[in-house]
């Protein structure tokens, strides 16, 4: 792989839900080793982009390259076997499986030879999960479910982690814990992270680069610092920010 080639390269992607257009020609890249965030209002199309990368729904036009390979038309399960993992919106924990089984599901198709090692890393990051490993997923609190969703995604030893709104509905202390964990994963494990967030302040502080999405289009991009300093970003997304 040449140094200039991004790990994830989204080129002019459009996505439709039936006749409704959700993404209007999105261009975006994530380089190896980066944390890139996508911020925007509710309904802007952030989660749609996240899911389109995973092929569900598939892009109606444009293309998506992962590690130089065109994955636009691949079925979801094959995309997810390419060292991409997602912690989706709403967490989607398997409610009637134990915490441990949820974690094992993350490693199931990845051919991860070191499941024990990955489990240990997951428990190191989120010790609460170890305490609750035999409890059913559906009985966890929201924060614990979020930790489990991230830990489950990590079980496949991904190179690229897609995180959709990990802070949604969580207490500030838990949000801090989760963002710290993301930073650790990036710095210590070299994990590349693409983070979709409404909590723009935290996300931009954490990320190397950021994109702003409005109505299915990328309207701004820059480093996290640049975007944080922009008046229009402040006005639109950081009202009362700094919390």
């Amino acid at each position, binding site marked *: 792989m040449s140094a200039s080639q991004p790990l994830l390269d989204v080129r002019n992607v459009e996505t439709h839900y039936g006749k409704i257009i959700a993404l209007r020609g999105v261009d975006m890249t994530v380089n190896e080793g980066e944390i890139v965030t996508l911020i925007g209002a509710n309904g802007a199309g952030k989660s749609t982009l996240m899911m389109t990368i995973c092929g569900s729904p598939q892009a109606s036009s444009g293309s998506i390259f992962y590690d130089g390979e065109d994955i636009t038309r691949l079925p979801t399960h094959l995309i997810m076997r390419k060292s991409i993992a997602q912690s989706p919106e709403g967490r989607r924990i398997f409610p009637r499986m134990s915490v441990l089984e949820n974690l094992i599901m993350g490693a199931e198709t990845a051919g991860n030879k070191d499941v024990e090692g990955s489990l240990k890393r997951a428990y190191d990051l989120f010790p609460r999960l170890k305490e609750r490993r035999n409890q059913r997923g559906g009985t966890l609190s929201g924060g614990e479910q979020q930790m489990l969703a991230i830990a*489950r995604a990590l079980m496949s030893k991904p190179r690229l982690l897609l995180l959709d709104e990990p802070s949604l509905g969580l207490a500030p202390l838990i949000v801090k814990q989760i963002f710290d964990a993301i930073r650790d994963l990036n710095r210590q494990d070299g994990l590349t992270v693409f983070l979709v967030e409404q909590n723009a302040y935290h996300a931009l502080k954490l990320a190397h680069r950021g994109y702003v999405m409005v109505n299915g289009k990328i309207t701004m991009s820059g480093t996290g610092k640049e975007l944080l300093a922009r008046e229009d970003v402040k006005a639109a997304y950081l009202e009362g920010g700094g919390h």
Partner: protein
Amino acid sequence: MEYFLQQLINGVTLGSIYGLIAIGYTMVYGIIGMINFAHGDIFMVGAFISLILIVTLGVTASMPLALLILALIAILIVSMALTSVWGWTVERIAYRPLRGSFRLAPLITAIGASIVLQNFVQISQGARNKPLQPLIPGGFTLSEGAGESGFIVQLSYSQILIIVVTTVLMIGFTTLINKTSLGRAQRSCEQDRKMASLLGINVDRTISLTFVMGASLASVAGLMFLIYYGVIDFYIGFLAGVKAFTAAVLGGIGSLPGAMLGGLLIGLIETFWSGYFSVEYKDVAAFSILAIVLIFMPEGLLGKPEVEKV
């Protein structure tokens, strides 16, 4: 007391057969939320394939026991394989294209598949009853009729075979679902198909395999039914199918232990009703249960436990 014991033995035997069929209903419902009305006919086809093989291979009760057992196992495997192919094919051509369509659509094709199968067997095999000489005659006499009722209690070898095979299969199957990678994939698709695909699970393949597993268990039930009753026709799938469906609903549709428990209960209810009230109304009894459960306890006995946080 002797009479009661005899009914109990008969009920457990019949319940085993219903339980094996009910698993197919409950698993398919669990994973795609659809009642596979063609499932009962897969049971029927399983019985027919077994009968054809038994007759062609000339398997009879007079064979040496070891050879008889070997032949039955071989027949079972062939029958499971063939019905699995059918279960897979029906899912592939009649249900999968309609996934994402309105909920009634696959239900209608299921009924269509059921009619196709019934008519195919009726035309190709004839509409008459197909008898089979008892393959496994004899058994134990548990009570010689010495009691005051003078009733003789018997436990036939075929009943033992059915109960043992069913128990072994159910233990094996429960282990498969709870402990293996395939079982986890199956359960993950049942709980959240989209998330399963996000974890790299091939959802279509898992659904196909669910149909295959259900069909092979139904074909085992078909062979058991044939051995037990010694007579089959192209229509047995309907009644047995609806009863097994009742069993699945009674146990809690979507629940694997529920299907087994429901099967057992329906078998017992039907047998005891026939034994103590009237044989003519045994089906009425079974279907009244269906109506009562649907009205008063739609989640069934073991249906979806545990409160889930959203």
